[in-house]
């Protein structure tokens, strides 16, 4: 019989084995394969042909759709993420106030976040309907001009940004958990000093929340850069490619045009963009993110 130590190690490897196989089979090998495929001209049905970096040069020199999709995705991300964070933060502050009925309001504010994305997309096509939709009804009531919303090139992305902000609930919950983790003594110290609500917010709440804000910023940016369903279900990338989000363009390249080589190259460029943005965010974070000395988090 093997020694207990050896036996423990055996069990250890055995029990982690499914996950290790899964990593190799569904992450590591596909990653290598994707890098290789991105160097080929491979249309489904034909044999792959090695073309070196031609896919990458084509992207940057001969593909308008690539730039359009990059622009649409960055525009969406730049608009949606800051708005989402601000709204979620405001809501979290409000939901953190100890008033009666607090839990009811928490449920109400969280509801939009649980709507399944396809159902959500359908709902918003209907809300955006220029003739009979809710939004134009409201703008008219407010004396504002009607909008074509997602059905016009210039307003399509802002409309989808508005839609994304409605799903603030998940980020608000994260912020709420962060607010509840702010040590109460800090507020009491300011109260002793005679500080008002603004000082408490500016000098305690906000600095103590910066790690949570930073985390939400990074995950929201990464999520927004990979927006897909809205383009696939609501706009099909239109009108006039204005909502040709990157993943949607990649999907069409791979599964409508069957260009597996070019689509793989697109995927690697997206990976590069995400990494670059993440690195920039982390580099800048030391300037504004406050980590409490000795904090375990």
């Amino acid at each position, binding site marked *: 019989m093997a020694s207990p*130590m050896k036996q423990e190690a055996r069990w250890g490897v055995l*029990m982690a084995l499914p996950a290790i196989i*899964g990593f190799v089979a569904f992450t590591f090998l596909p990653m290598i394969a994707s890098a290789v495929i991105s160097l080929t001209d491979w249309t489904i049905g034909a044999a792959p042909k090695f073309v070196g970096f031609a896919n990458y040069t084509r992207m940057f020199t001969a593909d308008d759709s690539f730039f359009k999709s990059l622009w649409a995705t960055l525009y969406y991300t730049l608009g949606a993420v800051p708005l989402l964070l601000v709204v979620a933060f405001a809501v979290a502050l409000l939901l953190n106030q100890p008033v009666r009925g607090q839990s009811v309001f928490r449920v109400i504010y*969280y509801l939009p976040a649980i709507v399944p994305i*396809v159902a959500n997309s*359908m709902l918003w096509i209907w809300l955006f309907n220029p003739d009979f939709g809710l939004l134009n009804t409201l703008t008219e009531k407010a004396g504002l001009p009607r909008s074509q919303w997602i059905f016009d090139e210039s307003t399509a992305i802002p409309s989808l940004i508005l839609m994304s902000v*409605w799903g603030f609930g998940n980020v608000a919950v994260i912020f709420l958990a962060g607010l509840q983790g702010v040590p109460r003594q800090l507020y009491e110290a300011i109260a002793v000093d005679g500080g008002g609500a603004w000082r408490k917010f500016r000098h305690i709440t906000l600095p103590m929340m910066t790690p949570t804000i930073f985390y939400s910023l990074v995950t929201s940016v990464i999520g927004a850069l990979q927006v897909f369903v809205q383009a696939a279900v609501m706009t099909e990338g239109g009108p006039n490619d204005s909502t040709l989000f990157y993943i949607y363009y990649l999907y069409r390249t791979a599964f409508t045009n069957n260009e597996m080589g070019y689509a793989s190259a697109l995927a690697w460029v997206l990976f590069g963009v995400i990494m670059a943005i993440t690195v920039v965010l982390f580099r800048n974070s030391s300037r504004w993110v406050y980590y409490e000395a000795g904090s375990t*988090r």
Partner: protein
Amino acid sequence: MTAVLEKPEVAATAPPASRPLAPRGAGKKILVYLLLIAGAIPTLLPLIWLVRSALMESGQIFVSPPQWIPKPFAWDNFSGALTQVPFARYFLNTLILEAGVLVGTVLSCSLAAFSFARLRWKHKNLVFGILMSGVMLPYAVTLIPTFLFWQKLGLVNTYVPLILPHWFGTGVFNIFLLRQFFLSIPYELDESAYIDGATPFQVYWRIILPLSKPALAVVGVFTFLGVWNDYLGPLIYLNDSDKYTLAMGLASFQGTYTAQWGYLMAAAAVVLLPIVLLFAFAQKYFVEGIALTGLKG
């Protein structure tokens, strides 16, 4: 997040570290209520619009200016929508997927998490680190080779590509979360079981899993939501409409019946309803899960 997961039995209901100071005076309280109500209106309005449209006859839907109360209540929108498209079939398909993915995820992720948290073996931490690095990779990178792999095996248009990877711990974040939780369970429990001659698998199955129900519930709820919401996966892998999931069925319904908003909103409501019920019964796991993922940083 380690702070929240300190002890298994309190993980789901970890008390807030602090409570903000109560609003002083009635004036501030009234202001808080006013803001809460003012914010609840735009939050709820789209959902109210969804329900009113789902219950309205098409004649009334296209009245301008729009009306809010259905007259009469068109309950047959639901039976209409549900019979135009085989939603019962889609529902069953989705449940089959859910079952396959849920069981696979919970088993493979908890096995690996147990190994990483409680067994000693060589290079364990290195292997864990490599597995975790997988979360950095956008799914777009592995999407195409994985698809080509399943195509080669002739398994496109089956549920295998949508289920099998989940039996191999591909939801690495779940491994991370469960490992954190398992680490917080006192090790003496394992030791006394080993003295009684238990194997590591018995310790995992009889001691650790029963103590980890809150963490398993969080993983379960979020896995369920992930499958329910997934659109890209079924879109790529399922061709025959009788294999569609609810999300796909809903999207294709939207493409076919563009102007029948009563039907469309009734269908969207049907897809939303199970999630609302799940939320009603498992609210604390929703909030807990989001808060945990959010505080991971």
